[in-house]
Structure formats: structure tokens, C-alpha cells
């Protein structure tokens, strides 16, 4: 029983992302307002980004930028992968953050068009107007 608890507590980082992702998913499904749905999408995205970054972490490792050019006295030392955190998830998230800002812009543009058309951002009011049109 102790080992089970310690294995789960040792992975507390995943609990945080799961909490964030479920919070975002709740906002996407249950909230009525389009802007709140968009905020939910962004919270979900933040959870994913934190998840990737924590996967790249290594104990006692530093950022993936090499000290080099020899001028620091020690000459050329061998580079060990254990001493540097994994750069790959960082690269993926670096682009994902900027793309998420751009897609947020598209989402806001879509909600502006919705508001111009239906004079409302509430999902149920838009749905009733759509039913009345038919």
C-alpha cells in the first residue's frame, strides 16, 4: 500500500495537468458563453504545455544551452545528455504557444462575427435563433 501511495505522490506533477485539463474541458462543455469556452480551451492548452515541459525535465540538469568556445579555461569537455534537459518538448511547446495565440485570435474573430450576426454570445440564445430561422 505504501508503494502505491508513494508512486502516485511522486507523480504529483501529472495531477496538476490533469486538474487543469479537466477544468478546461468542463468550461468547454458546460459553459454557455462563447468567451468562457475560449478561456476553457486556453486553460486546456496550458495543461498540455505544462505536461510537455515537465516531461523534458531531468533532475540536476540545466537548460539545453551549451557552454562552449573553450575560452572558459577547462578546454573542450565531453557533453553528456544527462546534464541537459530534453530540448525536444521545449521546441514543440515554443511553437505551440505562439500558434495558440494566433488561434486565439481566430477564435475571437469568429465570436465577433457570431455577435454581429445574432447579437449574442450565449450558446442557447444562438441555438434558439437558429431554430426559429428554419
Amino acid at each position: 500500500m505504501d508503494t502505491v501511495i508513494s508512486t502516485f505522490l511522486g507523480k504529483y506533477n501529472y495531477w496538476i495537468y490533469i486538474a487543469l485539463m479537466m477544468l478546461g474541458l468542463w468550461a468547454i462543455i458546460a459553459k454557455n458563453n462563447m468567451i468562457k469556452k475560449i478561456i476553457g480551451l486556453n486553460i486546456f492548452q496550458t495543461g498540455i504545455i505544462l505536461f510537455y515541459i515537465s516531461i523534458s525535465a531531468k533532475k540536476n540538469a540545466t537548460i539545453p544551452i551549451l557552454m562552449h568556445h573553450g575560452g572558459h579555461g577547462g578546454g573542450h569537455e565531453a557533453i553528456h545528455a544527462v546534464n541537459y534537459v530534453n530540448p525536444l518538448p521545449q521546441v514543440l511547446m515554443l511553437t505551440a504557444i505562439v500558434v495558440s495565440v494566433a488561434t486565439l485570435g481566430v477564435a475571437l474573430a469568429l465570436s465577433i462575427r457570431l455577435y454581429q450576426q445574432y447579437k449574442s454570445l450565449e450558446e442557447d440564445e444562438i441555438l434558439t435563433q437558429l431554430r426559429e430561422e428554419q
Partner: protein
Amino acid sequence: MRKLALLSICISGLLLIYATGDFPSFGDPHSPAAEHLSPHYIEQALEETSVPNIVSAVLADYRGYDTMFETVVVFSAALACFFLLRVHNASPRRRFYRHNLTGVVLHVSGEKKIPEGSVHFERIDSKWTPQTPIVRIVSRLLTPFIQLFGLYVIFHGHQSPGGGFQGGVILGASFLLLALSHDLRFVIGRVGERFLSIFNSAGVLLYSGVGLVCLGLGGNFLDYSALSAIMPVGEVAARSWGILFVEIGVGMTVMASMILIYNNVASEGRWDEGL
């Protein structure tokens, strides 16, 4: 409906928590993600590309295709905002001109205009509040320094944290600061729609153009070592130069996209007055 949503979220949350049992623990240096490809990047990146910032090397060289299409995504997001919102011949809104000395505000409707460069009258937004000069002057003074820092982040991305995406966002943010502290017309007067659109597509063109030049010189697409044929540097240094060109392209696209998205969203596509 809400109960159903809560139930499904609880179930998927529990399933995810159950799945963490198979995940590596936090900070494990031998987790599966760190075992296969990333040791090669960390140990060989400096030798192969002469770029000490491994993130830049992986971003623009090893994963060049991925980054190219991420740039295209940002470009098309700006394009999507343009197509969704931009209106060219909308019925003109009422315009408001404020007489600077007396504070009298004129409402002008229709096509009549007060000339742009008028000393006595200043065009103001319809939801205008008196602005303190401190905010305007400080943000105007700060803008060149922010832009300088953005350029530093782009061009120093090889040696320190940075690169085209981050620098492009900083450059774009400097213009958004002007748009928020003054008004939207102030920014549009300096970087117009035509300039931004050309800049936006030029970034993507520069990125793919570097790839095509590599192809023309006998290498693979985006294989920058082929650039050494037309530059007086070795194959390894050519790869770091290729990374720099590509990062500049990314920075141009990201900067222009941020401003285009803001201008379209803030003015509902009218480009006359913002937030």
C-alpha cells in the same frame, strides 16, 4: 446536461490519473522521452550545426519542416482573421473630432472630413476618455527599446534563449503597446495594412525560399549545409547561418501576424478605431 458533463469529466480525469501509473516519475533522466533522439541532439548539435542553443538548432534545423508549417499556421491565422472580419466599404461611422484648446467635440457623419494633419482638431475614438500624457509619453519612449530587445532576441537566439517566435512576439507587442496607449490610427499610420500583409507573407517566403535555395544547390529541402556553396563558410557554419535566415523569416511573419490579428479583432475589421 451539466450533470452529464461533470460525470464524463470525472470519469476521464480518473482514467487519466490511473494512466499516470505507467508514466515516468518527475525529473527522471532515463524517461522514455529522453532516451532515443534527444541524446543525439544534445551531444551532436554543437558539432553538426555550431549552435550552442540546442533548442534553436532543433527548431530550425532538425525539425525545419515542422517549424515551417507552424509559421504557415500563424500566417494563415492572420489571413483567417482578415477574411472573417475585414470590411472595406462599411457605412461610415460617426466620427468625433476634439478641439484641442477648448475640448469641444464635433460629431461628423457622412463623408465630410476634417483634414488629417489639422493642428486644432484631433480625431478621437467614439468611446474616448481623457488620457494622461504620462502613459502616452512613457510608452512612446519605451517602444524603441522594446523593439531593440526584440531584434536582440531574434539575432541572439543562437547563443541564448530566443529565436524568431519569441522575438517576433516582442516586436509585435511593441506596436500593440502603441495601439493601446495612443489609438489604432496612430499605429496604422506607421505600419499600414499593405506593409503588414507584405511583411507577413515575406516571412513565409523567406523561410521556404531558403529551403528552395538549398534544394537548388544540390542538397535536400532545408538542408542548410548546401548553402556553403554560395557563402564563404564551411558546411557546419552554413547550417548556423541557415538557421539565422529562417529565424528572421519566422520573426517577420509572427510580428506582422500579431499586429494584423489585433487590428482586425480590436476594430471589428474596420481599421478605424480600436479598444
